[in-house]
């Protein structure tokens, strides 16, 4: 286990380093001149040169990279060209919005995907199963931006059940005092139930949009791992030994299927960590995804770079956690090989 941990940590650090390298150099290839962007559209040449010197953009790429790397190690992701704010700070202040969206979306996806997957697996080949599979295919074929538009069109424009795609709260509603950055939780902590209700109403459409799409991989994974487990020799043994089908399904089947499912949910969540650019853009959700979108549109290289690196690092870190969790749950990894009798 210790060896495993050390190896895992080593790989993660290498991956993170790789992320910084890859992103830095990809982003440096981007057309457009960071200094020119910073100087504004009507800047004169001297002004651009000045800015270039000030931010060290005139130095060799290699030096810039070393500086950047050192900065990242210190938690300094540079300064946004557009807003003159430290990128990390801007990302961190937007992260809770993305996380709140992510958490609820994954929750919804899990609530849809897991039971549906189990039922489909238990009734493999029946119409329930076909419905589940079509649902899963529909989910993984869905264009997020299109589904989001449908949601907006029907539930906002036509029916008016939910607020428009503007923000996390209605215009002019002050957010609850920040504790976690989740409005639904902070509102509850502060006893502002109206804010909580409003936050949920604003969350509803983007969460449903994402939840539907994210349910697909979870459903598929639950279904196939439960099927696999149910077809396994040890389930056959349990049945032969008189264990009832229900117990087999839930204790042996689902319990063992839980491992891959947990991983899938983790991966889905990791995917959401970066904020979903499309959904955040579509619903004007003030998270990191929209920040990235704006950064791309305005050639804000530092911000874009910071975003991508943050996403990568969070993802790697999350994967370490998932793997460790997996190792803790699965005795085959947790424990050594042999007990000699």
């Amino acid at each position, binding site marked *: 286990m210790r060896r495993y941990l050390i190896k895992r940590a080593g790989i993660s650090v290498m991956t993170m380093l790789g992320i910084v390298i890859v992103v830095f150099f990809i982003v440096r290839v981007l057309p457009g001149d960071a200094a020119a962007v910073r100087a504004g559209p009507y800047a004169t040449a001297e002004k651009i040169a000045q800015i270039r010197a000030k931010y060290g953009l005139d130095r060799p790429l290699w030096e810039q990279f070393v500086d950047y790397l050192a900065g990242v190690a210190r938690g300094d992701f540079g300064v946004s060209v557009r807003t003159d704010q430290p990128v990390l700070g801007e990302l961190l202040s937007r992260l809770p919005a993305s996380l709140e969206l992510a958490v609820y979306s994954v929750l919804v996806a899990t609530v849809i995907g897991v039971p549906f997957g189990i039922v489909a697996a238990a009734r493999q080949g029946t119409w329930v199963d076909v419905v589940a*599979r079509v649902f899963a295919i*529909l989910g993984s*074929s869905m264009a997020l931006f*299109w589904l989001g538009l449908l949601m907006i069109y029907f539930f906002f424009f036509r029916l008016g059940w939910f607020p428009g795609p503007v923000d996390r709260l209605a215009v002019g509603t002050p957010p609850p005092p920040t504790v976690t950055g989740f409005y639904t939780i902070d509102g509850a902590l502060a006893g502002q139930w109206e804010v909580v209700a409003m936050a949920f109403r604003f969350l509803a459409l983007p969460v449903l949009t994402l939840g539907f799409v994210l349910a697909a991989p979870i459903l598929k994974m639950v279904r196939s791992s439960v099927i696999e487990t149910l077809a396994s020799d040890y389930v056959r043994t349990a049945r032969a030994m008189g264990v009832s089908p229900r117990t087999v399904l839930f204790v042996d089947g689902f319990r063992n299927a839980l491992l891959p499912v947990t991983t899938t949910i983790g991966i889905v969540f990791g995917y959401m960590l970066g904020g979903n650019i499309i959904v955040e853009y579509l619903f004007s959700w003030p998270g990191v995804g929209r920040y990235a979108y704006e950064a791309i549109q305005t050639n804000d290289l530092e911000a874009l770079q910071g975003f991508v690196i943050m996403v990568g690092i969070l993802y790697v870190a999350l994967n370490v956690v998932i793997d460790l969790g997996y190792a803790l749950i699965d005795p085959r990894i947790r424990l050594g090989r042999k007990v000699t009798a």
Partner: protein
Amino acid sequence: MSQSVSWELPSSAEPGRLARWSAELRKRPLLAVGVALLFAYLVLAVVGPAVTVDPLRTDPANQLLPPSAAHPFGTDEFGRDVFARAVAAARLDLWIGLVIAVVSMVVGSVIGVVAGYWGGRVDEVIMRLTDVLLAFPGFVLALILVAAMGDSVPNVIVAVSVSFLPHFIRLTRAEALQQREMEYVDGARLAGNPPWRVAFRHVMPNSLGPAAVQATLVAGWAILTVAGLAFLGVGIRPPTPEWGVMVAEGANDVITGEWWTALFPGGMIVLAVMAFHFVGDELGGGRV
């Protein structure tokens, strides 16, 4: 008991290929739906542009007309025929999707086989690089790559292919690792095949199965990714008839009630992707 389980029916007389396929399709309705849809799209892509009006022709006098007989999908805010554009887009999108699937599969599989067959250092390096690529959500990776390379169809193909590479590398590598242990590899070595020949002539063709199934799905996802990028204004740009571009162009109209400009092309995307997935999912035994 378990020894004698070849319960499969014997293939007494070889039925024609067509007959076998149609029997297969009847047995698997989802596959049939997928194949039928793909076929319909194919026809649309090939024949469609010949029978519709010019997808680029604007008609300011007929802006934002709702669907009608003359304009089955209505017109957009430039007065262009949405149906004609959606049909023209089918050609571009399907083509891009397939090219991306093939490119990423071929490149990914070669790398995967190299990693899986040679193992050791080579494998270690390739897998670490793959880890780095995998640390980004695919869409984000494609996004920064296109941003880095500039907007153009070839660049989009390259960027999106790269974003799907890690899947193929991992898949083929895992398969190659298994195949490497198969005795026919020993046989091939003993028959005098040099390592590269063992890897590419023997191991690789046998490692492509999962990758080929995956490629079907990737063709669908590639369309989604390309359209998603276009929706964000990256990659393929207006006024090119492309589904994502069209949805992006029409997105603002939805909120003012002119739903047809965005919802039709979006529906075309989803159906097309579903078609690929029905096929891929069935080929993968419903477990992909």
